[in-house]
Structure formats: structure tokens, C-alpha cells
């Protein structure tokens, strides 16, 4: 059976065998989530995704959103699936059931998202953004704000967005000019222009609730003077009924490279002086609120990019098994030899195993972060909570920046496996690549992610998070070392981890020296090598589990026994695939990572020293 969107066996492997998600059910908070429940949730997410959402992926891309006189129309097919997602209660899976969530572990919500987001991420942005906006209300809202908005957002009855960007304030949010003036009734009159607002206006829900960053009159310049407001498209009266249109006007939507099904809007607030909002959180603390939500939002973007890669990989494998082209290389001189499936060609196999290793490593990393988030929620004490929160902090730029970089690379290779068919619209590959591209840009460009890792996260809490992370990796290395077949794999990963530690020390020190500019010119390469080492860790972890299982199935780990087991048993084939992914990455990619690490420690300053005029053009 050809897999669609994602490989179910791999999802189950990460959930049950690698992260042992069932252990969460020992805690009261997640007591309902035993293996059967977890499997049922993933099965139904896949069901809904494959049968209902996936068929809208291409239609949504071709039809796109339309704008006419302030009204945004989404693709026709999105209405039915929006209702299905809403009725199925998939909008706010990990949130409190009291407010319309399902109290699900974040790890499981990511697995369900693997299918749902993977089926059509431009569509899933509508409920995804609604969830994120609702989370802001839950964390920072007053009881009244929660009563008025939260349940309707978490259940998808109303949609949500996030209004940060302005024409002059993109990566530099502190430069925003939207203003808020306090009224006598405690509300604020909001005025400003926002751009690049995903889902800023659409026809899927009865109301749209916009958390808006604006500066209260007289507040300090820069990020210290920014506050967060809750601004509904249609005013919500104190009794919950809908009032008047709140002067949030969509003035246009962008024509984009990808994610055509999601309306990227320009919004004018208070153009007629009639836009009101209520303060969300405290005055001038808007950026703090945003930062608290940022890790989750960035993890979601990592998931979006990743699902494009996961789709690209399963499509490419299925295609390579069916597409016949060219003789087997060993039969090249045989005139009578028939064309073989392209999966038999060494160069195609190289592309496929590269995609496979990255997709598997990325899935493990993202779910691992979900598990860290669950551990924060059930931590027995503050020290444990701090540890897992620290791991989330340090891994977030990797989960967003590195994952989306590599996801795009996987999509590109997927196009390559399809050859000319990958480049034409009839096949899904070019859309995946176009859709994926935005994930490297929004929610903090990957350059910002790299600077976040080097400038904030490395030295955070005196380096405790990075030390905790290295400690976790060492546990995996120790477990792999006792398996003779994986001993050298583990040694290679250990060397890379130690080298990464050196590189981090060097770059951290350089960032504190007069060569700070050169250090930051290597921030992105540093993110890159950090991500590579995280992949190696995850793949080694997977291989250690797989080798143990394989030994049980095959009787031993020698080549012949493994080969026989693979022929007879599909689980053995899966485990063999895990060992080979690790082998490929450790022996074919990690050596390249070594080279990249060497370049970082050299910290050549050409990028900084080159005069602007010398760039030519």
C-alpha cells in the first residue's frame, strides 16, 4: 500500500519505540492517552487528512484566494474541510478541555499534525493561527476576555491571526507605528497598517480575532513600548453577541510563490477611526507575550516545512518504484535488458536515502520537542521543568531554521527524482517545493533563527541548556556503543558532538570579541552544523532501537541474517531502513559537517570585509 503524506510506520516508531509516548499516561494529566487512544487519534487524523484534506491541496493551489472590495474568498473546497476540522475538534488538540481543547500531549498533537498539516498546510494555517491566537488569550487574557473569545477560538467557530508586520517593521518589529489611544470605557482606539497577515481576512468563520501589536500613545520607542491588543473583526458585546463591524479593513492580498490557499492580507485598522481593541496582558509588555508564544509558533512552522519534505519523500519513493527508465547499470551492455524502475539506479537511491535520513531525523527532532513540552507540563519539580524548557529554547531555532532549510532541500530532491515530471504542475512535487519555501522566511527568517541560536540561546542561563542537550546526546551515544554493530557509528557521532562543543565555544567567544561581525556571519553555518549533529543524534538513537529489534527478529546482526529477515518480515525491513539511514548520515553527511565546522572555526572574515561597492551589480 503506497503511503500518502507520511509513513505511518515511521510515525508509530517515533511515538512508541523512540519516545515511548505511553509513559505520559502514567501522569494524571495524560491518563486517558494509552496506546489504543494514541493509535486511534493518529488513525483518524490520517483518515481525515488523506480522504478529505489532501484532495484540496492542488485545488487550493490552483484556485487560490480572491480579493474583491475588501472581501476575501477562499477556495470553495476549503469550506467543507474547515467544518470537518472544526467538528472533529482538531483545532486546539493540546489545550485545556475546559476551553474547547482536548488535553492531548503535544507529542501526539504533532503526530496528528504530521498528517493534517501535511495534507494541505496552506489550509491548516487557518485553524493553526486560530489556535496560536487563542493561546495568547489563554495565557494573557482576563477572565472576561477568555469568556468572550477563547472557547469560540479553540473550537474554530471564530478564527484568529497575529498582526505584527508593518511595511517598515518586518524582522525589526520594534519599528512598528500602529498606535493605541485609551478610551474612557477602558478600550483602546487602534490605528495602523499591517501587512503579510496570514488569514487576516477570509470567509471561513463567523468572526476573526486579531491579536495586534501597537504602541500606546507616549510609550517608549522600540520593542520596550509595544503592547498587545485583542481586536475582533466584528465587535463582541459583553453578552457575547456580535456588534458592529470593527473597522478592520482588508485592502488587498498578496500574489505569492506558494501557499495560494492562504490569504496573505494587508489590513488597515481604524481607517475610519472606529477600530477598538482591549489590552491583552500588560501595557508595554506585548513583545514579552509574543516571545512566550514564539517557541510554539516556530515549532509549528518547522512542522509545516517538514510535512512538505515528508510528502516529497513518500511521493518520490512511490514514483521511483513505479517509473521505469533506463537499464540496470550492471546490464548496460546487454541490448536485450529491459528498463528498470529508477529506484534501482545508484544516483536515485542516493537521493532517496538522503531524503529518508533527513525526513526521519527531522520527524524525531520535532516530536522530541513536543515530548520536552509535555515533560515541562508534568515535571515533578522546578529543576526538571527548567531542564526541559531549556532544551526547547535551544532546539527551537534548529526546529524552525535548520528543519525548514533541509525540508526545502528534500523537496528539491523530490522534484529531481521525478525528473521533468517534477517540474510540471500535473504532479505534486513543484507545489510542495513552492509551498515549503515560505517556511524559511516567516515566523523569523532563518537568518534570525541563526542569530537567536548564537546570540541568545547558546549563552542562556550560563550555558546550562546546551550542556543539558549535550548530556542527553551522550546518553544515546552510550546506549549505541554497547551494540557492537553500532559502536563505530556512536564513536563518529561522539566525535562530532565534541567538535560541535568546541565550535560553539569558539564562536561564542568570537561573538564577544571585536570580531563579532565575523562571528555572526557564521551564525547560519553554525545553525547548519548544529542541526546536522542533531540529525546524527536522532538517527543514532533510532538505529540503536532498530538494531536491538532486528537482532530479535533476525537472530543476529550479521549481514546474511539481516538480509533474510528483511525478505520475510516488513518490520525487519523497517528496522534495516533505520540502521541504513544512520549509516548513510554518519558516514556520508557528517564528514561534510566536519568540513563546515572547520570553516566556522577558521571564521574567515571575507563576508564582513568585502566593501559594499565590491559586491558589484
Amino acid at each position, binding site marked *: 500500500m503506497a503511503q500518502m503524506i507520511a509513513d505511518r510506520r515511521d510515525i508509530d516508531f517515533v511515538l512508541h519505540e523512540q519516545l515511548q509516548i505511553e509513559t505520559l499516561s502514567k501522569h494524571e494529566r495524560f491518563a486517558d492517552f494509552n496506546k489504543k487512544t494514541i493509535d486511534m487519534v493518529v488513525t483518524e487524523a490520517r483518515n481525515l487528512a488523506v480522504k478529505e484534506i489532501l484532495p484540496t491541496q492542488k485545488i487550493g493551489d490552483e484556485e487560490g484566494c480572491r480579493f474583491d472590495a475588501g472581501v476575501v474568498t477562499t477556495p470553495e473546497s476549503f469550506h467543507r474541510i474547515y467544518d470537518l476540522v472544526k467538528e*472533529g475538534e482538531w483545532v486546539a488538540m493540546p489545550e485545556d*478541555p475546559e476551553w474547547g481543547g482536548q488535553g492531548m500531549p503535544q507529542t501526539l498533537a504533532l503526530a496528528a499534525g504530521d498528517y493534517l498539516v501535511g495534507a494541505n498546510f496552506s489550509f491548516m494555517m487557518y485553524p493553526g493561527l486560530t489556535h496560536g491566537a487563542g493561546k495568547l488569550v489563554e495565557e494573557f487574557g482576563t477572565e472576561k476576555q477568555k469568556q468572550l473569545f477563547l472557547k469560540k477560538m479553540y473550537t474554530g467557530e471564530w478564527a484568529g491571526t497575529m498582526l505584527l508586520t508593518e511595511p517598515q517593521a518586518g524582522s525589526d518589529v520594534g519599528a512598528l507605528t500602529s498606535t493605541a489611544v485609551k478610551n474612557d470605557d477602558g478600550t483602546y482606539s487602534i490605528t495602523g497598517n499591517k501587512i503579510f497577515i496570514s488569514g487576516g481576512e477570509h470567509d471561513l468563520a463567523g468572526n476573526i480575532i486579531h491579536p495586534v501589536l501597537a504602541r500606546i500613545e507616549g510609550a517608549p520607542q522600540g520593542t520596550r513600548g509595544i503592547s498587545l491588543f485583542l481586536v475582533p473583526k466584528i465587535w463582541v458585546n459583553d453578552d457575547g453577541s456580535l456588534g458592529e463591524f470593527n473597522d478592520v479593513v482588508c485592502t488587498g492580498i498578496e500574489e505569492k510563490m506558494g501557499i495560494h490557499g492562504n490569504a496573505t492580507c494587508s489590513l488597515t485598522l481604524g481607517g475610519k477611526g472606529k477600530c477598538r481593541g482591549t489590552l491583552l496582558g500588560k501595557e508595554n509588555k506585548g513583545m514579552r507575550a509574543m516571545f512566550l508564544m514564539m517557541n510554539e509558533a516556530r515549532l509549528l512552522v518547522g512542522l509545516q516545512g517538514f510535512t512538505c519534505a515528508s510528502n516529497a519523500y513518500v511521493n518520490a519513493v512511490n514514483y521511483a518504484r513505479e517509473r521505469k527508465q533506463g537499464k540496470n547499470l550492471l546490464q548496460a551492455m546487454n541490448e536485450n535488458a529491459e528498463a528498470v524502475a529508477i529506484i534501482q539506479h545508484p544516483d536515485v537511491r542516493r537521493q532517496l536515502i538522503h531524503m529518508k535520513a533527513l525526513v526521519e531525523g527531522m520527524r524525531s527532532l520535532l516530536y522530541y520537542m513536543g515530548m520536552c513540552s509535555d515533560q515541562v507540563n508534568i515535571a515533578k519539580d522546578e529543576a526538571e521543568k527548567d531542564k526541559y524548557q531549556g532544551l526547547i529554547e535551544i532546539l527551537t531555532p534548529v526546529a524552525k531554521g535548520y528543519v525548514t532549510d533541509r525540508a526545502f532541500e528534500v523537496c528539491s530532491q523530490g522534484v529531481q527524482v521525478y525528473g521533468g515530471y517534477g517540474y510540471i504542475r500535473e504532479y505534486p512535487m513543484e507545489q510542495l517545493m513552492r509551498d515549503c519555501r515560505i517556511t524559511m522566511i516567516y515566523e523569523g527568517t532563518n537568518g534570525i533563527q541563526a542569530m537567536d541560536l548564537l546570540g541568545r540561546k547558546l549563552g542562556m542561563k550560563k550555558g546550562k541548556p546546551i550542556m543539558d542537550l549535550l548530556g542527553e546526546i551522550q546518553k544515546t551515544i552510550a546506549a549505541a556503543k554497547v551494540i557492537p554493530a553500532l559502536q563505530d557509528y556512536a564513536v563518529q557521532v561522539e566525535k562530532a558532538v565534541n567538535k560541535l562543543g568546541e565550535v560553539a565555544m569558539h564562536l561564542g567567544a568570537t561573538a564577544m570579541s571585536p570580531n563579532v561581525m565575523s562571528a555572526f556571519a557564521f551564525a547560519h553555518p553554525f545553525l547548519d552544523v548544529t542541526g546536522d549533529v542533531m540529525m546524527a543524534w536522532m538517527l543514532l538513537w533510532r538505529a540503536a532501537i532498530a538494531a536491538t529489534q532486528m537482532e530479535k527478529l533476525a537472530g543476529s546482526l550479521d549481514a546474511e541474517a539481516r538480509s533474510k529477515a528483511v525478505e520475510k518480515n516488513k518490520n525487519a525491513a523497517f528496522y534495516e531502513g533505520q540502521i541504513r539511514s544512520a549509516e548513510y548520515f554518519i558516514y556520508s553527511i557528517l564528514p561534510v559537517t566536519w568540513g563546515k565546522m572547520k570553516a566556522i572555526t577558521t571564521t574567515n572574515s571575507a563576508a564582513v570585509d568585502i566593501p559594499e561597492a565590491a559586491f558589484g551589480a
Partner: protein
Amino acid sequence: MKILVCVKQVYDPDAPVRIRDDAKWVTMDEDAFVMNRFDEFAVEEAIRIREQMQATMDVISVGPDRVTAVIRRAIGMGADHGIHLITRSDGYQNPFETAARIAGYARDKSYDLILAGVMSVDDMNGMVGPLTAEFLHLPCATSVISCHLIPESGRIRVEREIEGGLRDHLELQLPAILTLQSGINQPRYPSLSKMLRASSYRLEVIEPDSVALPSFPLSVTQISLPDKTRAGRMITGTPQEKARELVGILKTRLAA
């Protein structure tokens, strides 16, 4: 109104099936079982009836332990209660035995309406519904594409799809059994909160030993793939290339 819905767990029609070496049965991937599509229509129809009037809705399935997944899925869709009639065998399930088990359970439960899919997508016998009706001496309508309850007369009006594109209109006295054809409704998906309820719901489990069954001499003697009498041909290329080649083939065939 008391409704019983019969659901069968079937092997995913898209999953690979291999004939066992002894040719007596097939090997199947243990994680590739789903609810019979036709039974989804039955579950949905029962939920819709319950939405219109005071009713309770039970769902029942016959099979080994794994079939609890489809009972729980039906509860996730909205059923009130689930009954699992356990079988010892994981292989071929004789429709006489399945119907006898269901009838044995339902006999003293005073159900007003029993719904099932018109057939299962694996065996496609279409027998369990009518056989259950026979065992219970109830009126039965098969291949139903619409139904309408008339509470005041205790009857149900149904429209059946029959051969030749014709339709049959019947009225049945309740209690009755209907087997539903595709297209009667659009089955809903389970909601998360109902699934969570379903996963912890204590199902009613009936052991096989608790029912004395007559002997039904129906068994599998051999399984084989049908002989290949004609071959399909895949046309590849761009839509234009495919169309051109197809036109060429049609011209050649017509000329012949």
C-alpha cells in the same frame, strides 16, 4: 426508539493481501483494518435518526479482539454503547454464524430497528443482514437508499435500489432490519472528544461459549487468484501524449 447497528471490521481494500502457503486463508497486515464502508452509512443513519427523536443507539461487531477498534470508532462517531461478540478465530468468518451470534444477542433486547451495511467490502456476500432478519423473524429491506420513520404507525418507509436502475418503495412494520446502500448519507468523522470517551468506554463483551450455535456447514476449501484472462495496459506520458496514443489505439481497434 432503540437502534442496533451492525459493523464489521474489514481489511483495508488498499492494503496488500498475500495468500498463505496452505491456500486456506490470506495473511494481512495487523494494522491495516478499517470499518466496513457500508457500515459507516448505517452508523451515520442511526445517529441522524437519534438526532430527530428520542432514541438510543448500540453498535455491535463480531470478531477477534482487534474488532473493538471499529466499535470504538462508531462510539467516536456518536454511538451510545458498544457490544463485542468475541470469536476465537482470526480467519474466515461464516456469515451464518455472524448472523446467528447477532440474532442471539438481539433476540431479547427489544430493538426497534437494526441497521447494517448492504454488504462488506471484503467478502461482499450481503448475507448478514437478511440472515439476522430470518433468525429473528423480522421484516428486512436490503440495499436501502433512503428511509423515513413514521412513529405514529410504528412503521418505516424505505426506498431500495434494485436491478436495472429501478427503485422499490416499501413500508415495513417495526421492528425491522435494513441494510443500507452507499449514498444514503455522508458518514461523519469521529470527533476527538467522542474518541477519547470511546477509548475508555467499557464495552459489553460476549464470549463465544455463552451462545449455543447450530452448525453451519460453510468453510473455505481453497483460495486462489483468478486466472488472468486479459491484461490492462498503462498509457504513460503527458495528457496530450496519452490522448494521442489512446486515439491511435481506438482507431486500430475500430478498424479491426
